[in-house]
């Protein structure tokens, strides 16, 4: 089975994030594999171990993502591909990333493509479905279980806490939801083996893409941190008066009803 994992390097949102000059400050930030992509890597390794084949992890980004790719190799992926857009693109969005990934994948005869359900930084959840659309293959998002029987695939999908069971077929793209598996961390032999595994680097040129082909469809106007939480207001007095006051505040102050 020919398996591809779409992986993103993101900053760790559990660490403190700061903004300067309209951009997220990369200096103090910690960078990690997008946690949902860790599920994707783990699932890919498990499928390969059960069915045979090969796992290739791909990322679109800069040289710095090499560390996360090496981590994926140390976890057990077989190959890694970095599509380095650092010199070519100043601004990109989900369309850009999806277009590049699809261009890379179109002649790879992928049986299974696994991505994370969302990246915890942008949180759009668009890249996976867009890639599937461009490749013209079926996709299922937010999956919590995957079973492959020949070319029949049974997927359990998380729908806002409920489960939906879907039967589909290969080739297929799925995106991983929390609960799909428990991602492993690298062992020492895994790290040693990763030293010898191939990590290829490509640029847009290698995919016969021009900057215009992948030009972002959206523009980011502003990035800001969530507003500091204001001190709350505790209403006092008779219950009936409190309700009246609350309704009037919702009307006049908060203007939500």
């Amino acid at each position, binding site marked *: 089975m020919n398996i591809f994992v779409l992986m993103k390097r993101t900053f760790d949102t559990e660490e403190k994030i700061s903004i300067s000059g309209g951009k997220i400050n990369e200096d103090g930030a910690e960078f990690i594999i997008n946690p949902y992509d860790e599920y994707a890597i783990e699932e890919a390794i498990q499928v390969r171990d059960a069915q045979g084949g090969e796992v290739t992890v791909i990322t679109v980004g800069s040289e710095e993502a090499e560390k996360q790719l*090496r981590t994926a190799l140390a976890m057990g992926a077989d190959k890694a591909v970095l599509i380095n857009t650092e010199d070519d693109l100043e601004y990109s969005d989900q369309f850009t990333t999806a277009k590049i990934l699809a261009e890379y994948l179109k002649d790879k005869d992928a049986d299974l493509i696994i991505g994370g359900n969302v990246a915890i930084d942008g949180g759009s959840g668009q890249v996976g479905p867009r890639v599937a659309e461009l490749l013209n293959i079926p996709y299922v998002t937010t999956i919590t279980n995957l079973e492959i029987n020949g070319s029949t695939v049974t997927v359990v999908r998380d729908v806002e806490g409920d489960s939906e069971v879907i039967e589909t077929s290969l080739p297929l793209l799925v995106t991983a939801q929390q609960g799909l598996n428990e991602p492993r961390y690298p062992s*020492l032999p895994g790290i040693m083996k990763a030293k010898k595994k191939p990590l290829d680097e490509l640029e847009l040129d290698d995919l016969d893409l021009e900057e215009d082909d992948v030009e972002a469809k959206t523009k980011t106007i502003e990035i800001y941190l969530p507003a500091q939480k204001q001190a709350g207001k505790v209403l006092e007095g008779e219950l009936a008066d409190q309700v009246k006051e609350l309704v009037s505040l919702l009307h006049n102050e908060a203007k939500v009803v």
Partner: protein
Amino acid sequence: MAISTKQELELIRESVKALCTKFPEAYWRETDEKNAYPEEFIQALTKEGWLSVLIPEEYGGAGLGMVEACAILEEINRSGGNSGAGHAQMYTMGAVLRHGSEEQKRRYLPKVASGELRLQAFGITEPTAGSDTTSIETTAELKGDRYIVNGQKIWTSRAEYSDLMLLLARTTPKDQVNKKTDGLSLFLLDMKDQQHNITIRPIDTMINHATTEVFFENVEIPVENLIGVEGKGFRYVLSGMNAERILIASESVGDGYYFVDKSVQYANERVVFNRPIGQNQGVQFPIAQSYMEIEAARLMRDKAAELFDAGENCAAEANMAKYLASEAAWKAANAAMSTYGGYGFATEYNIERKFREARLFIVAPITNNLVVSYVGQHVLGLPRSF
């Protein structure tokens, strides 16, 4: 030996950290309380290859160096754990690797690497010979094709959790050798095979370290388990000590960071007189001072480890790293105890456990007085005191 890039070293640290999150402080508190061997932790470490980091690839290990081994132990201790339960599996095999025959290496190292055999008991210290190693009285006498061992060791840690023991014994009486360092020999003792001639008695101590007294009564060791040349064992022990000291220094560095991490967190959170206690310089300064000393000790540890990996003489640096790191960690332990006030004494907060554990490295595997005398006499050329 393979050398890791900065990125790979980071990956090693992060992977060890991830493993340690599966063994949180509650786990260590419980094993400490029950005086139990942290078997599950050691198995996880073994299974994921961390304890065979120093064994060459051809014998089934990772074939990495001291720099990587240091990172592993440091992260374990920084997480609140205690590497002491497994550190010796990493380095005791060094005697076999450096001085053993090819046959011994093939016979033992792959099994040590896989964890099938535990070689993590090191019998040197005796009741009447602590710091003064050459005065040991345990004897090994050659009879036919075996050595017969009689005597007693003390403070032999992990003897109950090891298959093999690296044993130092006298093969020629002290009064019949030219130099007191001659006539000592190093053996690989199969304790499981000889269990009927060995008595192991656990010693109750203030830390959970599985340390014991071991009695030998006509214990048999086949000649093929003598390491190197008979009578030269002391030299082999000395050559392994640099590795041990650098690794112990790393555990202390990890302990030191643990105390600083914890102190900073607590000093920021605990509010007394309407302000975080960390705002008081009386609380803040000892933490900052400890941090500086740990950073400095870490630099010496790094230097020693790099020299070791380059195959250069690192005895002075290894000793100094062990001294500086253990003293810095102890200072940090006290800063943490002060920062936590009364809560430092409550087992629930873990500080008192780590405090007890951090104290060991000022005494073992060699006391800091002896390190200082080494530096005075061997590094600075001052007169010998003993």
